[in-house]
């Protein structure tokens, strides 16, 4: 019986130690990194004039709220725009500019642009990755003909097949951002 008693004592003390050693700390909130909340495409007419911005902003990440899509105005027909895209993590303060990481790892990223509608808008890439393949942070956009109800889909892919034919469907990789903007060309 004595051994049992000793064993029970050890037993209980283990239980006590473990239950006492526990800390009841309040957990720290997670500082969400590398989350892209906001994508802004700024189109500045190459001949000067008011810039047009296309923005998708989703401040609750994969939460239930849908992203806010805003298009600041119509494009001008037959006009060339210098486009630059910025990806931000606005959950951090100040907002973290993820574009810098995209540029740093340019061989693993590409921004794709796809149009629908009758405007005949198109883009050309103005930047390249280390291997000479397009990156797509800086582009030139040709607005095309006057029309309404066109769409522009901007997709940031991580680890796409590079080089590719420039179409999103054949690029593989993982989608980090995908936003579709409706726009008119006046």
């Amino acid at each position, binding site marked *: 019986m004595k051994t049992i008693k000793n064993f029970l004592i050890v037993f209980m003390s283990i239980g006590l130690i473990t239950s006492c050693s526990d800390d009841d700390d309040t957990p720290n*909130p997670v500082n969400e*990194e590398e989350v892209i909340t906001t994508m802004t495409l700024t189109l500045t007419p190459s001949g000067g004039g008011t810039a047009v911005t296309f923005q998708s902003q989703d401040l609750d990440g994969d939460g239930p709220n849908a992203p806010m899509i805003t298009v600041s105005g119509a494009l001008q027909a037959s006009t060339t725009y210098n486009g630059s895209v910025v990806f931000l993590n606005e959950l951090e303060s100040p907002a973290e500019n993820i574009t810098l990481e*995209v540029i740093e790892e340019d061989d693993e990223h590409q921004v794709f642009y796809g149009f629908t509608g009758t405007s005949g808008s198109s883009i050309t890439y103005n930047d390249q990755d280390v291997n000479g393949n397009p990156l797509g942070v800086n582009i030139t956009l040709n607005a095309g003909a006057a029309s309404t109800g066109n769409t522009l889909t901007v997709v940031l892919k991580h680890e796409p097949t590079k080089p590719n034919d420039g179409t999103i469907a054949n690029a593989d990789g993982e989608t980090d951002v995908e936003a579709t903007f409706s726009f008119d060309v006046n």
Partner: protein
Amino acid sequence: MRLKALFILFITFQMSYAQECSYTFLGELKDFHDNTPIVGATIFMQNLNRYTTSDFDGKFKIENLCTGELTLVISHVGCETKTLTYSIEGDIFKRISLEHHIEELDEVSLKSNERKTTNTAQESVIKADVLKQYSILSLGDALKEVPGVSSINTGNAIVKPMINGLHSSRLLILNNNVRLQDQEWGIEHAPNIDINSANNISVIKGAAALAVGGDAVGGVVVINPNRVIRIDTLYGKTTVSGQTNGKGFGITSSLNKGFGSGWFVSVQGTLKQNGDFKSPDYYLTNTGLKSNSFTVSAGRKNFERGFEVFYSYINNEIGILRSSHIGNISDLINAINSQQPLVTDDFSYDINAPKQDVTHHLAKALYYQRFKNFGKLNLQYDYQNNQRFEFDIRVGDDRNKAALDLNLQTHTITADLNLDANLQYKINVGVMGRYQDNFANPDTGVRRLIPDYEKFDFGTYITTEWIVNDKTTIDAGVRYDYNKIDAKKFYRTSRWEERGYDEDFSDIVIEDLGTQLLTNPVFTYHNFSASAGLKYQLDDNNTILGNYALSSRPPNPSELFSDGLHHSAARVELGDLRLEQEISNRISATYNLNTSNFNLVVDLFYNRINDFMYLRPSGIEQTIRGAFPVWEYQKTDAELYGIDISSNYKFNDNIAWRHTSSYTKGNDIKAGIDLIDIPAFNTNNTITFTKEEWRSFKASLKSEWVFEQTQFPDFNFETFIATTQEDVLVDISTPPSAFHLLHFYSEVTLPLNEKNNLNIALSINNIFNTSYRAYLNRLRYFADDLGRNIMLQLQLNY
């Protein structure tokens, strides 16, 4: 005077004679266990070289004993031989206890391979000689030997066992009598067990093993290590395996030392590695695995008391198919439409993200003591530490940082009293207390999948076993469990409101951080479970079993707290704080036919589960990555039923045929749809040729035929593809086609000397290199399953 002297001398002589050799030893032999007299035992007086036997009352008498030591060696059929030494200084009476129920009390290792945990449940045992074929594979692969057991896989290295269509939290896994606590709620979390540490494995369908837990809605897997043999012995084995697919290799070794005094020590260790597996047409890039594990145990085991300390360690680093990592639904559609994975590289042993790195420690201390004419008390403490890292494909500075970092610590104490003084009517009572602490490291930079929580469990049970007569055994039991979970979880304010928690749970918010809320959900659950069963032997060859089990399972952390995007599934998964426990009522019946050349087991079951919790699609949400379907944990009433058949037929001494087949049907009664992820009908047939004279030569050919699952819920959905501006149907539901595979296995055993032998096994899986996809492999959207695999294994027994 001379006469007087002579007289004194004579008297003295007489006295000394009487003093030295006139004593009587009266002995009474009783059974330790129920105090009945032991009749006809042989008592050997070692120093006198004389024999006697015990009479009808268990008594024996030894006369004319001299002063000094007397050594008795008492033996009796079915008893352990006992050697006792007494010092004789006068007449003595001794009551001596022997144990002659050792076999029934399951204290000897002779029948260890056949040892079952339950009497009336549907239980199957996988023995060491079958387990050894799975040395380089996983626990989940080996369990599929039992009809009705399948697995739900994530690739080929993450294999979760499934019993009659149920898995994860619905199965309990018991490793050396310790309930495994390794984040088992996750469908991608394989059990942290090295198959090589098991001597035999028992699969119990349903919740009939109440002493283990009351929440085993699906069943229990019992992993038994080598048993301790109380003789002076030293034995062990070393197994070296290699396989062509994945260029895998494994080495496992064990060494056991036993002493007649009951002391023992054993060690066992395994190293395994493989690189990228290959389907018939391409490499499955990033499917490598590295595993290392060891167990040590030591202690002293005697009949009356004993103790054991046990420690096991396992670390698994598992690569997950590279092309299964996708960003959104468009990527999933691309993957489904592509006939082969989007990323296929050349063979490599490298394991890159996405991958898992999981370490599990298990330590246990056990003490037991047996009391005369009463029973056996077991006291056990165990500690487990599970550290799980999951690495995702990330960019920048976070590239090598885990996306998931969970540490789960569990302490359990159990006391179990087995009242077996009456072997016809045994009672088992016990209590269990458990404390669990989960810590989700916030340094990952990714929102916690599972929050920090503490969990307290208390359980108590009583089970009985009544041998009514030679033919009938009845068992019954009840159990109560109390669970309390105390979590600290951050919710996005938007999600909190969307779930309606701001109305129902506003009192648990402890801090408002603007875009998120810190909450303190505390839930308690009271669970009742019960089981009753009957085993009836119709005649020498026919036995039937019937069993009813009631079990109650509280929601697990993922069912309560899931809240976020599941990348590889491209869906948002949501838990529900309002969930209550699910209640299962399972009825089963088994028919067992056993003749000299034919053996048949038919298992039937019906399992009705009220408030069954499972993930079901409920809508679509838009994010900056695109649209995602939302899958919510919902409760419903479900039923599962089915039949499992296994049979063995010996045509003659050389040729045998084994057949197993299994059919399971699952219905969501409330929604009127089929349950998801139910195994399709499958049937396996094996022809084995054995020739003992040819160095125990054995060769077998196995046909594995898995039908197409035609009963599945249609969870397909339409999504708008922005890049093409069109709606596309995403077919995530349709199961893949049926497949048929042939496997070959052969072995010989070469005796090296009296004690040592070498077993050589050669096997070929998927002989015809057939391309197939399995419904229950979650990576079936992305790639084919494994192609041909040739394995060679050498096992040295010493």
